[in-house]
């Protein structure tokens, strides 16, 4: 890539930082250049977030309809996967999947629920009272 072609598009980096790119200068030698973003990848990131928002919305509806427990909703909201939630709570993924069922969730002790609340950075009340 030549230095004059470094994209300076709007992106999610704005107000935080700029991207270092390695580019060819006028003499054909490599040097560093800063880029505010590239719409090609900004669009890819935007699509990934749209997908996340869809998943969160679906999770919300599933909780509302009594299909899933609030744990499932916050799990999606906090972009987690089984490795991550298992790491933060110390529960096995088999157990976590059970806790995502509403009838199992209702019987969970405050001690167990607190582990989830801590993992999600929310209060115990928020976790208990979420109903979609």
């Amino acid at each position, binding site marked *: *890539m030549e230095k004059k072609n470094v994209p300076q598009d709007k992106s*999610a*980096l704005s*107000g*935080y*930082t*700029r*991207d*270092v*790119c*390695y*580019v*060819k200068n006028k003499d054909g*030698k*490599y040097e*560093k250049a*800063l880029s505010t973003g*590239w*719409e*090609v*990848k900004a*669009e*890819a*990131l935007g*699509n*990934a*977030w749209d*997908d996340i928002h869809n998943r969160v919305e679906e999770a919300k509806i599933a909780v509302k309809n009594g299909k899933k427990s609030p744990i499932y909703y916050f799990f999606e909201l906090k*972009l*987690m*996967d089984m*490795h*991550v939630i*298992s*790491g*933060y709570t110390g529960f096995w993924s088999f157990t976590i999947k059970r806790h995502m069922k509403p009838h199992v969730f209702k019987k969970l002790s405050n001690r167990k629920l607190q582990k989830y609340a801590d993992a999600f950075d929310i209060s115990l009340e928020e976790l208990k009272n979420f109903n979609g």
Partner: protein
Amino acid sequence: MDKTTTPTVKFNHLQTAHCENGVTTSLLQHHGIDFMSEPLAFGLGAGLFYIHVPLITVLNGPFISFRTLPGTIFKRTCKALGVKVERIKFSNKNTAQDYLDKQIEKGRLVGSQVGVFHLPYFPPEYRFHFNAHNIIIYGKDQEGNYLVSDPVMETTNVLTPNELQKVRFAQGPLAPKGQLYYPVNVSKVSTDLLKKGIIKGIKRNVRDMLYIPGFFAGSKGIKFTAGQVRKWRDKLGQRKAGLYLGQIVRMQEEIGTGGGGFRFLYAAFLEESASYFDGNEELLKASEQITKAGDLWRDSAVQMAGIYKGRLTEQSDYNLSASILEEISNVEQQAFRQLSKLKLSS
């Protein structure tokens, strides 16, 4: 009287494309290895790679990487330059903080592996559960907060003890476990040693790109991805196929790669290396080839973006993406074959 309880270390923040290269470069420069640069760190560490792990998905998309395993660049670069490294993990959070404080009191700069999900100064849309990020902690301020140099940021940042604790003990894949690392016993590095390191780094990268076993790794792995891309439209449907292509582009171009899936960074390394070998023509030619590969990666991203923006919808558009990838695979194979024949003497 001076109120600060900790010595202030003279330290210049260095912004680089990639975090691990950045920490490596900064720490080695700080210890007097003045010639250190990001491309050198990347090349000495044999950082370039390609892998598309079949059947496993990450963040609901394909598992693709353009670089070698986290941690290996720092390890290999230091080893090549005869620098000993201290690396320590913790199971207890308080011990982890005490250890760090002790190092700061000694005036030592330390590298720290962290997760980015809870990193407050990071752009919010980049905060995923990615745990192999690297930062330098270079001191404490009067309020007891930690001074942080994050190589992908333009300026330095400050983290409270709690904030730092949280990112050092992030959970999930590649959990950092409070990991700290720093060079010890850094002596002067001779040009001969550096040249030996360059030769070794190139050899290692030749091996990784040409001879690594498995149809999905090294430069042949790019052809595996090409084959997958041809199938995605029918197999996954347009929407999901678009998300998969988007994931390739993000892994390839997002913050930390220097553009073109680290290819420009590697080309810069070969160019810089040539200057240590009397402007070796073969190295410069290989650098040009890798630059060409990088440019093709950018072209491929533009083509893929056409698809995930919904502008291109035909199977032929997927096929074109795939054929660019196949061309890249050939170009990279050729470049590394040239490098494998290279006769350099330190």
